[in-house]
């Protein structure tokens, strides 16, 4: 019976092959590809589709079928690997294969889920750490998420501790340091990598840029990003040689402040920079201030001092039985400070003189709410 079924399937395939050959069209080739796929010949199916799409590049039928088959193949592979993971939880290769499958579709959440699960069974496994770091790097580039950057650094350092010659880890760590603005560390990692991999043009580009050093805008981004990351204080990250960096050194001595979840840092920065005349903005939460952004020429400590205005105002309101502060505007010849009260803290924005407007102010608080920094405005001031 089984033999009969196999023969019948082979005959069907032969007939479809002949038809696709004699009367090539999107439909005949699509039918052949789909039959290959259904009969468990995915490679043949994708090869046929590739040929067909080269012949009929505008065919919607072929494009849709290709997307459908790739999705189906992905789901099939995931099912198989999930079963293997359940059967062999202590085998790092199956966790790795599953993580890599998810990585091909850039599902970084799933990648990290699999990596975390894998590392709980196989602690310190280099391959898993590497694919996890790659996923975090992806998120770091996509969302400018410092948390992922820092965790990826930890993972990659662990990989390099186990195998100092791991070129992939060196490249990724070099890229991360470059993104974070640690140019000296980036050069140290990328220079030997590029020496052995001269064809890697992207790494070559990072190395050249890192050797050129930071521009003023880049150093600002680094400073703000690192400020937030350190102040959250969640990550006992060892920065090793990076402690020599004066900025990092100064941060290390500061008390940890509160954990603020930033949705999209990039979007927030852009929104803040758009606010006309905005020179600096500080989020003063329940446990302390956090620098959000400041223009060049304004010292971080000075901007943070703006948070003192919020505390003084809050104290004054409470002691005078005025309730909770919702909004304050301090106008002076050199600029305007605006404080907007939120459920869990205050936003203080410093505007250049004559440039302060309610519109710019609203944009700042909208951006903060959108980015998830603050939950809700305290009142409709």
């Amino acid at each position: 019976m089984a033999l009969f079924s196999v023969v019948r399937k082979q005959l069907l395939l032969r007939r479809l092959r002949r038809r696709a050959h004699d009367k090539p069209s999107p439909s005949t080739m699509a039918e052949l590809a789909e039959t290959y796929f259904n009969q468990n010949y995915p490679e043949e199916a994708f090869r046929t589709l590739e040929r067909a799409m080269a012949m009929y590049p505008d065919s919607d039928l072929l494009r849709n079928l290709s997307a459908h088959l790739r999705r189906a193949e992905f789901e099939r592979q995931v099912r198989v690997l999930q079963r293997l993971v359940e059967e062999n939880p202590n085998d790092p290769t199956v966790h790795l294969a599953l993580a890599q499958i998810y990585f091909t579709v850039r599902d970084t959440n799933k990648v990290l889920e699999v990596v975390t699960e894998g590392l709980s069974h196989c602690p310190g496994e280099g391959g898993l750490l590497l694919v996890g770091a790659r996923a975090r790097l992806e998120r770091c580039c996509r969302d400018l998420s410092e948390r992922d950057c820092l965790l990826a650094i930890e993972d990659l350092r662990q990989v390099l501790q186990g195998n100092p010659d791991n070129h992939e880890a060196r490249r990724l760590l070099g890229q991360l340091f470059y993104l974070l603005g640690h140019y000296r560390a980036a050069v140290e990692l990328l220079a030997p990598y590029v020496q052995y991999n001269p064809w890697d043009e992207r790494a070559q580009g990072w190395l050249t840029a890192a050797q050129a050093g930071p521009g003023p805008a880049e150093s600002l981004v680094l400073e703000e990003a690192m400020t937030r990351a350190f102040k959250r204080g969640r990550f006992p990250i060892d920065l090793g040689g990076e402690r020599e960096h004066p900025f990092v050194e100064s941060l290390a001595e500061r008390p940890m402040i509160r954990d603020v979840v930033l949705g999209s840092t990039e979007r927030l920065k852009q929104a803040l920079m758009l606010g006309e005349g905005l020179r600096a903005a500080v989020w003063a939460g329940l446990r302390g201030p956090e620098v959000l952004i400041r223009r060049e020429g304004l010292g971080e400590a000075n901007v943070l001092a703006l948070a003192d205005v919020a505390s003084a105002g809050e104290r004054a309101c409470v002691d005078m039985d005025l309730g909770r502060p919702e909004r304050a505007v301090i106008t002076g010849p050199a600029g305007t400070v605006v404080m907007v009260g939120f459920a869990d803290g205050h936003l203080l924005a410093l505007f250049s003189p004559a440039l302060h407007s309610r519109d710019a102010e609203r944009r700042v608080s909208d951006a903060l709410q959108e980015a998830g920094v603050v939950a809700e405005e305290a009142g409709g001031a």
Partner: protein
Amino acid sequence: MRDILQELNRSVGVRGSAVVTHDGILVASELTAGLDEDAVAAMASSLVRNTISTLRRVGLGEFSLFTMQATSGKMVVADAEVAYLVVVTDPGVNLDLTMVDIEAASYRLTKRGQLGV
């Protein structure tokens, strides 16, 4: 000076007013019932002192006007050159209108030079 404050307190929604020097020293106050004179004096002094010191650090120098809206009231601190005029109002008051009276009072305080500091 008290007559200026008393006149200001007659404006709609004004609950009390006080004069505080740039150093945070209370010079005079006229507060309606319900506002603790000591608390207002202490907090107005402290607020002025802290705000000025912070603004100096940020490079803004001294302020000319500080308005604060809170859930149960509003507070305005206006510069009267040699001192600050502190005004506490009801929460629902339209500050844009009351500000005219506050600025007038501030101007009169400045002009009269009655502060003796």
